[in-house]
């Protein structure tokens, strides 16, 4: 059976790959959405933190001989700490101002990080080996899936689920949501909002770095690996509805699939399709697919 001349089995394969690719988008856009929700800042440095995650993992493995599993835990934490420091030192001076200043500051950070890594490690990147345990392949019947790609789906979905659970079902998440809605009132209830904000930025950035470590064995680790990713992630978050956790995750996965099919039918357009989708969605559903219309 064929669809537009492509066997249905091949399309199943592409669907699977789309989900893998979408898993990266989901984790990245989840981080961006959380940061936007609380800080009201569009974190332009999200792609740079993704790169930072991958590079930290590489450096840990290279120089300290850390196993992949260790780096998967340590690298996001390290990057999150760095992000929190950045928030604490600089970003917090811009709260209450027009969000465009936050955008500009995080953009400057991109220049410093990407430029700095290029000076230190060159532009052409580093090899990163897939962990031994995940090297095989998985026969799904309609395709042979490398084990590692399967692992990516599971790891990404788990981290998304955990994040969602923390935000929606725990006391910490409750105060976070409260701070999102009414920061001053939350402060009045005795919750340390500034610390909460720093923590949120850390979590968002940590998620980006986690995606970076996940990407390291399959995508080429180099200083500009996140730079073209960032506007795609913006688009995903906006399509999902700004600040909507669920929206970010679902749209991320969905977009991966849409992009995957575009690669089969009109490959040249595959990096542009997300923007076409965004225009259509915003014109038809102003607050995005999962956003609430406020007003």
């Amino acid at each position, binding site marked *: 059976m064929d669809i537009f001349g492509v066997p249905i089995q091949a399309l199943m394969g592409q669907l699977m790959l789309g989900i893998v690719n979408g898993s990266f988008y989901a984790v990245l856009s989840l981080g961006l959405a959380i940061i936007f929700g609380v800080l009201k800042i569009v974190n332009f440095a999200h792609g740079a933190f993704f790169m930072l995650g991958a590079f930290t993992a590489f450096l840990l493995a290279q120089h300290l001989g850390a196993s992949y599993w260790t780096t998967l835990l340590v690298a996001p934490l390290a990057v999150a700490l760095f992000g929190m420091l950045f928030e604490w030192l600089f970003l917090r001076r811009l709260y209450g101002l027009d969000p465009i200043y936050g955008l500009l500051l995080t953009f*400057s950070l991109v*220049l410093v*990080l990407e430029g700095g890594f290029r000076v230190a490690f060159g532009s052409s990147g580093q090899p990163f080996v897939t962990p031994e345990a995940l090297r095989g392949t998985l026969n799904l019947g309609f395709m042979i899936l490398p084990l590692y790609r399967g692992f990516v789906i599971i790891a990404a979905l788990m981290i998304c689920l955990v994040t969602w659970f923390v935000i929606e079902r725990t006391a910490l998440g409750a105060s976070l949501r409260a701070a999102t809605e009414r920061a001053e009132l939350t402060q009045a209830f005795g919750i340390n909002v500034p610390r909460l904000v720093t923590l949120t930025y850390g979590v968002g950035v940590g998620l980006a770095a986690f995606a970076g470590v996940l990407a390291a064995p399959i995508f080429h680790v180099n200083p500009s690996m996140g730079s073209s990713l960032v506007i795609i992630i913006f688009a995903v978050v906006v399509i999902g509805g700004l600040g909507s956790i669920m929206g970010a995750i679902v749209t991320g996965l969905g977009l991966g699939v849409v992009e995957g099919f575009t690669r089969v039918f009109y490959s040249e357009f595959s990096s542009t399709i997300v923007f*076409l989708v965004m225009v259509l969605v915003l014109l038809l559903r102003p607050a995005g697919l999962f956003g609430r219309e406020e007003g």
Partner: protein
Amino acid sequence: MHLRSLTWPLLIVGLLALIAVPFFPQLVYSVFVMKTLCFVLFACAFNLLLGHTGILSFGHAAFFGSGAYITGQLVKAYGVPTELGILAGGLVAALLGAVIGALAIRRSGIYLAMITLAISQLVFFFFLQAPFTGAEDGLQRIPRGTFLGVIDLNSDTALYYVVLGIVGVGLWVVWRTVHSPFGQVLRAIREHEPRAISLGYPVARYKVMVFALSAGLSGIAGSLKAIIFQLAALYDVHWHTSGDVILMTLLGGMNTVLGPAVGAAIVSTLNHYLDPFGAWVTVITGVVFMACVLTFRQGVVGELGKLLGTRRSAPPQPPATRPYSTGKPHEPTR
């Protein structure tokens, strides 16, 4: 000492300096100044939206680049006279601006910015695919031709004065717009859109008009650049260029008419004179921008005004923190 009394003397000194540029090739290279002038016009045109109407467009490269490509192709392939080519570049960009504006202004704040970004990505894709653009090689060897059939533009000096003249007219248009009744309405929209609506102004039509004007002038800036360097390249329509112009505007100060011009000059100079630092140039640029955002948020010109203890009488500044709506309070009626 009021800044306002300093404005005219400063402007005149600046203008004299610009006129003198071709006579001092040892001091400053005239082609570099021409390029800067293009960005000056681009940034000031962009600021019609950001600073004066409170609309953040993240897709202005689409207009800048369209101007460059249209002019380049007309002049190169169809032998259209240079001045008509530039005019056509501006017109096409204005038309594109009206269309994109009409779609984008149905939303506001970040959503509006994202629509402009998205459409400009589609425009980028068009120019990447279109056979005449040469993709990443660019549209090369655009002849400079003559201006009005008389002035041979192959001389850098002649071209310099033509560019200076066109950019001057462009800036004058921006200035007139800001200080006209039309500009007053734009500010009213920026300050409080529902009030402007309830006063009976056709706000949507005003927004589309200013979008088209801003786009048209940006297109002319792009056209000029295509003529100066005799090429139009993908970078001109890339979203990085949209980002660059935001940066220039904010660095210079978006609440002033000439701030963006200063910002454009700063960015252009940084790009030009940091070469000896080799690979460090990106890091240095980043640190400079960071310092600017953290220390003088009103932009160079804005802070200068504050330092001199006064602000320019017109245009009045918005409440310092909210030059454009974040999309929450008053989503325009559909």
